[in-house]
């Protein structure tokens, strides 16, 4: 062993990286492209944009991994992977992959990694991506960083994955030094959606799964699609208004909803509001809730903890209303108002209603 076993473990972060010989052949950046019922989850394209940057920085290729049952839609997805930046598309078509199940998907992705040896593997932090990434990383006995909010490669070509830590109170940067591939998941909307280039093309590499339906224990009996009407679409809304503990009680969230309705936007809240039971979890904005990238984000009575900041930083314009001039939210807002949200929200709603109403009548 290079290091005597008595060396204190705490020194590991500064330890010189010595990648074991058998990992040195691991090259290229991979993105798992999540396809469910013929549709690609947008987070996969967001990751392709990010993966392209990492691959260019490393001087390697970007590959997409597409798993599913044989269908015309899947062929279309393969073409799209090139448009979003893939040089290679690894594809595994098998009837057992028609719907997501942990067992065959873990097998397919693990086999592909073991065969083609990527240095970086990125997945969306969706219910599917997290289910799959945890199994694949454990099977491969490698490092996996969840919910990364920033990805980069350092001078030693090691993946630096930054994420909130300690319940979202600080950020930390995590590396997988001596194992490959270096794996990370990223939540939807954290990375910007790249523009597809329909002139791009790439090469396709086939993979055979070699599993029978009889080998797979879990069966999908049914898929019950969510009713479209009652779902909040915070992540993709152009305008979002959210309230925090500064609103003092659940009734005052009517003020947030009214402003959102006036602007034709969505409403949301900070994490403590959900923990208090004032709003359902689907309305939560921040690292463990929805990441948003609206054109306008109005935060009322929200202090701006790191776990909230990472979920809203992609917004074009952040307007913060808070009585505390030292609130963290003013460190990343574009416009700040030191005042009581309970007074400002109705005034702002009236101002917008007047302006939009007048314009609407005039046109």
């Amino acid at each position: 062993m290079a290091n005597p076993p008595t060396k204190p473990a705490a020194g590991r972060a500064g330890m010189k990286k010595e990648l074991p010989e058998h990992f040195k052949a691991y090259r290229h950046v991979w993105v798992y492209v999540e396809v469910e019922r013929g549709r690609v989850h947008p987070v996969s394209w967001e990751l392709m944009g990010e993966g392209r940057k990492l691959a260019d920085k490393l001087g390697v290729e970007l590959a997409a991994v597409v798993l599913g049952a044989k269908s015309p839609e899947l062929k279309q997805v393969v073409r799209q992977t090139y448009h979003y930046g893939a040089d290679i598309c690894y594809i595994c078509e098998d009837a057992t992959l028609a719907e997501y199940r942990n067992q065959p998907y873990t097998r397919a992705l693990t086999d592909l990694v073991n065969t083609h040896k990527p240095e970086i593997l990125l997945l969306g932090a969706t219910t599917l991506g997290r289910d799959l990434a945890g199994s694949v990383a454990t099977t491969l006995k490698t490092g996996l960083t969840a919910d990364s909010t920033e990805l980069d490669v350092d001078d030693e070509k090691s993946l630096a994955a930054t994420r909130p830590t300690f319940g979202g109170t600080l950020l930390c940067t995590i590396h997988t030094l001596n194992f490959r591939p270096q794996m990370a998941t990223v939540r939807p909307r954290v990375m910007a959606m790249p523009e597809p280039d329909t002139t791009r093309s790439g090469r396709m590499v086939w993979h055979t799964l070699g599993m029978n339906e009889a080998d797979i224990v879990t069966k999908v009996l049914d898929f019950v699609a969510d009713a479209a009407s009652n779902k909040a679409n915070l992540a993709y809304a152009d305008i979002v208004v959210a309230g925090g503990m500064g609103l003092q009680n659940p009734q005052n969230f009517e003020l947030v909803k009214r402003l959102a309705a006036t602007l034709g936007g969505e409403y949301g809240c900070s994490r403590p509001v959900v923990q208090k039971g004032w709003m359902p979890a689907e309305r939560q904005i921040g690292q463990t809730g929805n990441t948003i990238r609206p054109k306008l984000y109005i935060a009322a009575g929200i202090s701006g903890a790191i776990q909230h900041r990472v979920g809203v930083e992609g917004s074009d314009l952040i307007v913060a209303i808070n009585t505390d001039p030292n609130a963290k939210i003013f460190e990343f807002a574009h416009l700040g108002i030191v005042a009581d949200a309970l007074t400002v929200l109705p005034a702002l709603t009236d101002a917008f209603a007047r302006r939009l109403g007048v314009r609407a009548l005039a046109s």
Partner: protein
Amino acid sequence: MHIVVCIKQVPDSAQIRVHPVTNTIMRQGVPTIINPYDLFALEEAMRLRDEFGGRVTVLCMGPPMAEDALRRALGLGADQAVLITDRRFAGSDTLATSFALATALETLGKEHPIDIVFTGKQTIDGDTAQVGPGIACRLELNQLTYVAAIDSLDKAKGEIVARRRAEGGVQVLKSKLPCLITMLEGANTLRRGSVQDMLRAARAKVTVWSAEDAGVGDLLKCGLRGSPTVVKKVFAPQPREEPAEMVAVEGKTPAQIGDAILDLVFARQPKLEAELTA
């Protein structure tokens, strides 16, 4: 049925404070709780036990003080509690944690074979959702994550039907025991522990295992040494380079403040104004 619920003791996140200068967590005096998501797992486990018979064991990895969390679970109605605690587990990432827990589960299963392992969907301090799948993978348990409801359980056939939260809908899955289930929030309502359970919990003995007691043979797979990930730095983000433009509020009526904000919003986002008034 032998059902094991893996729980974690976490700091009450509402009360975590960061030292403004050193960027370290100030742990002193921060109360600890059972990870809230794990309570949905515990309740579901107890519900199955009450219906099908058997026992619920709660398993926790953590410092010696995590015994409090296990005692609380006993007070809520769990039958047996095991704490695996060892300095050599310190610094474990999710891969090393799933190794230690999976090994302890194997040891527990030798006494009474385990039918179902439950965990919460994730913890509120790490938020990774990786340990559950890690355990399932190591023990080759059928993995059912983000379960919103268990529709049915056929003990004789060893079959289970569960509803799993997926993107854009719910998968109804039929699987077999033994399995690992990570429970979604809101899946059930936690019972209040009975007086008998509270009294029993106060007197009950929490089994405390070292790495060796838990059956861990390879200590290189534990703690920092068994963790492929390395935290290189912990930091607070810098304020945005361009500071926020503060809207003057002094001596203004709410209506004037409202107009001032609106003018600044539209000045910075002229396209938005056009879209809204279109």
